[in-house]
């Protein structure tokens, strides 16, 4: 049995399934047909029903995935065959040629300006914006150039302009461009497969043509419009008509009445539009719609209150004669007409166009809309007719990102249960570290590496002047220039001499490269927290690119700031938290049952507590699928079910909870690493005070409808703010039995991410109490979002001394406490006030 998994499709569902599996100790191959990951989530601006920025939400997750050593991203590739059986599939993969070696390309973009072929409509922007024949496909990872073969002169004619040697090849320092690249077939061996191929708009002429799509200017689809809303899109986030004018009136026409997704998409776009410009008028024309989720109805009300006009109508005609303004008349429940400068059509959604081919390759049917079909007689939504292959997200049917995330977790849980015996067998061993012993108080000896980044840094400032200047700074012993810092060569070489105890890298953004540079630093033999990255590219040369002298001066100041802080950096060790490998499930509801059973199948111990005496009698448990799951659970030796029992006091923190079980015949204490709240919908006010005690113990929160709520954000539907505690099913939202089962499995994945390992390593960049300064005023306690701080008292020289204590297992390192404390009594490691004071003071020094 293999301990690795193939995930097909790197949209929100595929990315999430991958990261869940990585957390549980599986190796993951994430395959994507497009050259970059992110799927539709990367293309849209804001997401319903939370109105969060999609890029803000997706980008950190993408970077996490790309830097994980157990993750292989196979971008620009397709599956050509799958053979074998659950636990042992052989998958053939065809990688499409990029004509650029991604291992060598440093994303410096030096080749773009020299390419003579431009004006190529950008597929990522659905035809808007223009790129060169060599370019990035999108702003997202993997950030590697590629050549469009059907546009490249050299590929088409064997000559680039009149040159025999293409100028891009000349411009490319790392020699990454390779015109002889051919499609490449590889084979991988995995234990299970997840299909997360996503959705696409049906942009068919027979459907959209009558409203002027592809005929009349300023009639576009919802996804096309997302690119206009996005700050990373072709218009920099300013909505513009085809003639460059900013429209003052916009209308949406929802053509998708099979689900509420189209309606919600229109609402989100209209809301996003007026949030940018409250002056414009926005109307949504839609048919009858039923919003099944409370969160959707709330979002609808929110957009209505913000000024979005909703028009309920059955038939619409669009007429664009004359002025360029669109005349829209509608009939049905409401009748009338309106004028708009832009019309956005919201087509129905179908499975991604490539699924038909995939369906033949893998032998699982798709329906007429391009959604994979379930196995006959199996009501479980994510099972396919081929054992060991699971579905999630848009591959299974139209749905929003919120539901895709849940299904992705559920698919990951199903895979983890199937491959439980092989968990951890294919993950990379931790890197051997041989670190130079450094003490915080050691005299700083700083090495500096300045990256040319092709011409991105070196071409836009005077690099020799910068080097000379940097060398004159206190503690700086050596300064080296490197063509591309991201290859790690210079860092490893300098640190390999063991002469330095700090390193500064003047390069690109720490946001995208900190993990990589930290790895190089440790491979070079220095603790990663002794590295400082100075953002010379994204925050200096690229934004001051018209004045070399100005960019050079700014770079000097930034280096000065970086070096000043670096001198005060301290080596830090990861924090290791022991984990109790078991879980408490409160409530024998459909989701409680499915979660407990999934965990038990993964080989993890689970306690299920139910206050009813017979869970078989609970109404929601009458569903045939739930019934069979309950029978399986009863027969599983990993699960211990307590009926007619309640939960007493609970204490502890992630990985280390203690709970009291109150049974008819006495009490029992259990140790668990994680807790699931699967209590179902709250019925009236509880008569027994004790019943809800654990809610207070765990600082659980409910909304005004008495549903539990937790972490904000579309990616965290099941997570409470209290780490290690999760919610699912009708305890958190209105949900049917089948969805509850999925919810429970999804929760099992979240939980297994914690308890399937004996210990949890976490970043040491968390808070630290300075006992001498803290006077126990307790101001920091309440603002801490993690409830990490407690007040303690102790005897010191016959006096009672008060101070606070931080629970390292739960602190998130946000520093809210540090900013609250009036006495400098608490700080976040690596964010020490002295380090920043030095940095700030240095700004002035050069002036």
């Amino acid at each position: 049995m293999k301990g690795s998994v193939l995930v097909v499709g790197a949209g929100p569902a595929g990315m999430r399934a991958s990261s869940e599996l990585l957390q549980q100790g599986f190796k993951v191959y994430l395959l994507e047909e497009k050259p970059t990951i992110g799927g539709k989530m990367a293309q849209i601006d804001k997401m319903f029903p939370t109105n969060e920025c999609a890029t803000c939400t997706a980008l950190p997750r993408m970077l996490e995935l790309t830097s994980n050593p157990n993750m292989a991203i196979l971008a620009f590739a397709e599956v050509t065959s799958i053979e074998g059986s659950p636990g042992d599939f052989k998958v053939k993969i065809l990688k499409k040629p990029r004509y650029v070696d991604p291992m060598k390309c440093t994303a410096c973009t030096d080749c773009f300006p020299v390419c003579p072929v431009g004006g190529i409509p950008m597929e990522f922007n659905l035809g808007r914006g223009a790129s060169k024949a060599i370019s990035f496909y999108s702003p997202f990872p993997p950030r590697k150039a590629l050549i469009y073969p059907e546009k490249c002169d050299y590929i088409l004619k064997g000559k680039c302009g009149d040159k025999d040697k293409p100028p891009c090849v000349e411009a490319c320092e790392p020699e990454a461009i390779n015109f002889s690249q051919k499609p490449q077939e590889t084979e991988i061996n995995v234990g299970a497969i997840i299909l997360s191929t996503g959705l696409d708009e049906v942009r068919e002429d027979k459907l959209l043509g009558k409203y002027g799509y592809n005929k009349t200017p300023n009639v576009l689809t919802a996804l096309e419009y997302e690119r206009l809303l996005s700050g990373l899109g072709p218009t920099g986030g300013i909505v513009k008509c085809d003639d460059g004018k900013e429209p003052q009136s916009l209308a949406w026409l929802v053509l998708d009445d099979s689900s509420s997704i189209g309606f919600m998409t229109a609402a989100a776009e209209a809301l996003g539009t007026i949030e940018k410009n409250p002056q414009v008028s926005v109307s949504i024309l839609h048919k009858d719609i039923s919003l099944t989720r409370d969160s959707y109805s709330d979002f609808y009300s929110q957009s209505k209150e913000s000024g979005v006009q909703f028009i309920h109508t059955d038939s619409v005609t669009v007429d664009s004669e004359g002025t360029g303004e669109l005349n829209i008349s509608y009939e049905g429940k409401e009748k009338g007409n309106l004028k708009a400068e832009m019309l956005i059509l919201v087509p129905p959604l179908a499975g991604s166009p490539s699924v038909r081919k995939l369906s033949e390759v893998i032998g699982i049917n798709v329906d007429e809309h391009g959604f994979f079909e379930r196995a006959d007689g199996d009501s479980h939504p994510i099972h396919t007719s081929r054992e060991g292959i699971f579905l999630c997200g848009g591959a299974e049917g139209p749905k929003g990102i919120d539901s895709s995330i849940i299904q992705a977790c559920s698919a990951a849980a199903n895979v983890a249960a199937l491959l439980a015996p092989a968990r951890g067998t294919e993950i990379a061993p931790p890197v051997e570290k041989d670190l130079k012993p450094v003490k915080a108080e050691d005299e700083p000896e700083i090495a500096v590496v300045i990256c040319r980044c092709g011409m991105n840094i070196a071409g836009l400032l005077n690099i020799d002047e910068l080097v000379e200047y940097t060398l004159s700074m206190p503690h700086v012993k050596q300064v080296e220039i490197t063509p591309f810092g991201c290859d790690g060569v210079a860092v490893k070489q300098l640190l390999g001499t063991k002469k330095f105890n700090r390193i500064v890298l003047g390069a690109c953004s720490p946001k995208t490269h900190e993990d990589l540079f930290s790895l190089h630093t440790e491979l070079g033999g220095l603790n990663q927290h002794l590295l400082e990255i100075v953002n010379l590219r994204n925050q200096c040369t690229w934004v001051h690119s018209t004045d070399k002298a100005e960019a050079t001066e700014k770079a000097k100041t930034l280096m000065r700031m970086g070096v000043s802080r670096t001198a005060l950096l301290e080596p830090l060790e990861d924090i290791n938290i022991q984990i109790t490998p078991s879980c408490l499930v409160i409530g024998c509801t459909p989701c409680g049952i499915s979660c407990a059973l999934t965990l038990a199948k993964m080989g993890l111990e689970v306690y299920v507590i139910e206050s009813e005496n017979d869970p078989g009698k609970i109404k929601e448990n009458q569903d045939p699928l739930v019934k069979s799951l309950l029978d399986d659970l009863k027969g599983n030796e990993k699960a211990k079910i307590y009926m007619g029992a309640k939960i007493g006091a609970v204490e502890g923190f992630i990985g280390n909870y203690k709970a009291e079980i109150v049974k008819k015949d006495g009490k029992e204490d259990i140790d668990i690493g994680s807790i699931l709240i699967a209590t179902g919908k709250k019925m009236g006010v509880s008569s027994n005070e004790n019943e809800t005690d654990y809610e207070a113990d765990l600082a659980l929160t409910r909304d005004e409808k008495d549903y539990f709520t937790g972490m904000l954000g579309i990616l965290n539907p099941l997570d409470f703010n209290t780490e290690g505690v999760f919610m699912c099913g009708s305890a958190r939202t209105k949900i049917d039995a089948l969805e509850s089962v999925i919810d429970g499995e999804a929760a099992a994945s979240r939980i297994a991410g914690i308890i399937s390992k004996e210990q949890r390593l976490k970043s040491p960049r968390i808070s630290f109490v300075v006992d001498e300064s803290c006077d126990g005023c307790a101001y920091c306690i309440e603002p801490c979002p993690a409830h990490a701080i407690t007040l303690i008292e102790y005897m010191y020289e016959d006096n009672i001394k008060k101070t606070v204590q931080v629970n390292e297992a739960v602190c998130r390192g946000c520093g809210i406490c540090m900013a609250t404390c009036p006495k400098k009594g608490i700080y976040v490691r690596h964010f020490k006030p002295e380090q920043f004071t030095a940095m700030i003071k240095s700004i002035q020094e050069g002036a």
Partner: protein
Amino acid sequence: MEKEYEPIILTFCCNWCAYAAADSAGTARIQYPSNIHIIRYMCSGMVHPNMVMDTLTQGIADGVLICGCHPGDCHYQNGNEKAEARAEAIKLMLEDMGLEEERFRLEWTSASEGPKFAKIVKEMTETLRKLGPNPYKN
């Protein structure tokens, strides 16, 4: 002739949305004045009001800008709300110290709002150019 006064602006960007916004302004090659100096903090709620006030009353910078995630998008639940509450306190302290309120600004920028970030920087630089140097300088 004396060199024309150029304000120095210290900027705290939270690591998540705000720093990403500044980065994406770069990726899109949007130009903005070189007056700002960005410090990467984990959250806008990590910025101690004293850090802001010291920077101004010691005459190190002419203005301070804090950028965080939009309301509801903070990676630590509500650090940005904390920052907002502190901004009120900072404004009062500025007044006490005889400093103009334009010397401090708190803004929300999402990861795709590079253009907005650049716009804020331009505006603030302009405002401070007009306002003249921080009276606490020297």
